[in-house]
């Protein structure tokens, strides 16, 4: 795999994480489905995992950048896994909507696992690391769009969380934005 192909795949991967964060925002703002504390932490884990991709786009592919992705996805899977276990016994309720029969936290777990798997597949190809610093001297085109959108979504999630939870820990079952009351 050439460094250029690796960068294109990393840009597509970052767009995929952007799509997850956009979907979460759409559910939050269009359906007024406020994220619970564990949901917010899962979003933050997606942002950490996506940051590994952003590092690859900015500085060129490196194993350490992929490590950031795996660690972020592992943290996210741990959080999503706990939320699944909270609701896994029938009759113990659930939180938020469902898509294709799975609640969003179950989808989050699946996607975190796919990130780990996809990262491992990318690490298989040593050729991408041959370019070194020259691989990505500056962000252009697809990489730039993915990087900027990702930054805006990370910032938007931070602002949204401040509005919902103010300066403290978020309520377990949020019904409105604390700072917009």
């Amino acid at each position, binding site marked *: 795999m050439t460094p250029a192909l690796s960068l294109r795949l990393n840009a597509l991967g970052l767009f995929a994480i952007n799509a997850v964060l956009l979907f979460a925002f759409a559910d939050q703002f269009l359906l007024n489905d406020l994220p619970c*504390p564990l949901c917010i*932490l899962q979003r933050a884990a997606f942002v950490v995992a996506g940051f590994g991709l*952003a590092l690859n786009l900015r500085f060129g592919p490196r194993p350490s950048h992929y490590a950031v992705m795996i660690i972020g996805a592992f*943290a996210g899977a741990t959080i999503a896994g706990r939320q699944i276990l909270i609701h896994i*016994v029938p009759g113990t309720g659930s939180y938020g909507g469902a898509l294709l029969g799975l609640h969003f936290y179950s989808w989050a777990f699946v996607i975190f696992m796919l990130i780990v798997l996809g990262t491992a597949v990318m690490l298989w190809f040593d050729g991408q690391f041959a370019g070194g610093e020259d691989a990505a001297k500056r962000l252009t085109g697809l990489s730039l769009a993915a990087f900027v959108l990702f930054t805006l979504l990370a910032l938007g999630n*931070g602002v949204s969380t401040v509005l919902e939870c103010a300066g403290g820990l978020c309520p377990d079952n949020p019904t409105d934005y604390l700072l917009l009351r």
Partner: protein
Amino acid sequence: MMSIPFFFVVAALAAAWSGYRQASVVLCAAGLLTLLVLFRLHATDTLGLAL
């Protein structure tokens, strides 16, 4: 407080944009650490499971 991990990563992205790779990785690590601490603060109940 729960927004801190997001703002750490935004700061990390700004550092990366400016070319400061080492600083961006440190900022991201701080965001991840905050994320884990916040998870610990929320995961207080024992799960009703027999594993």
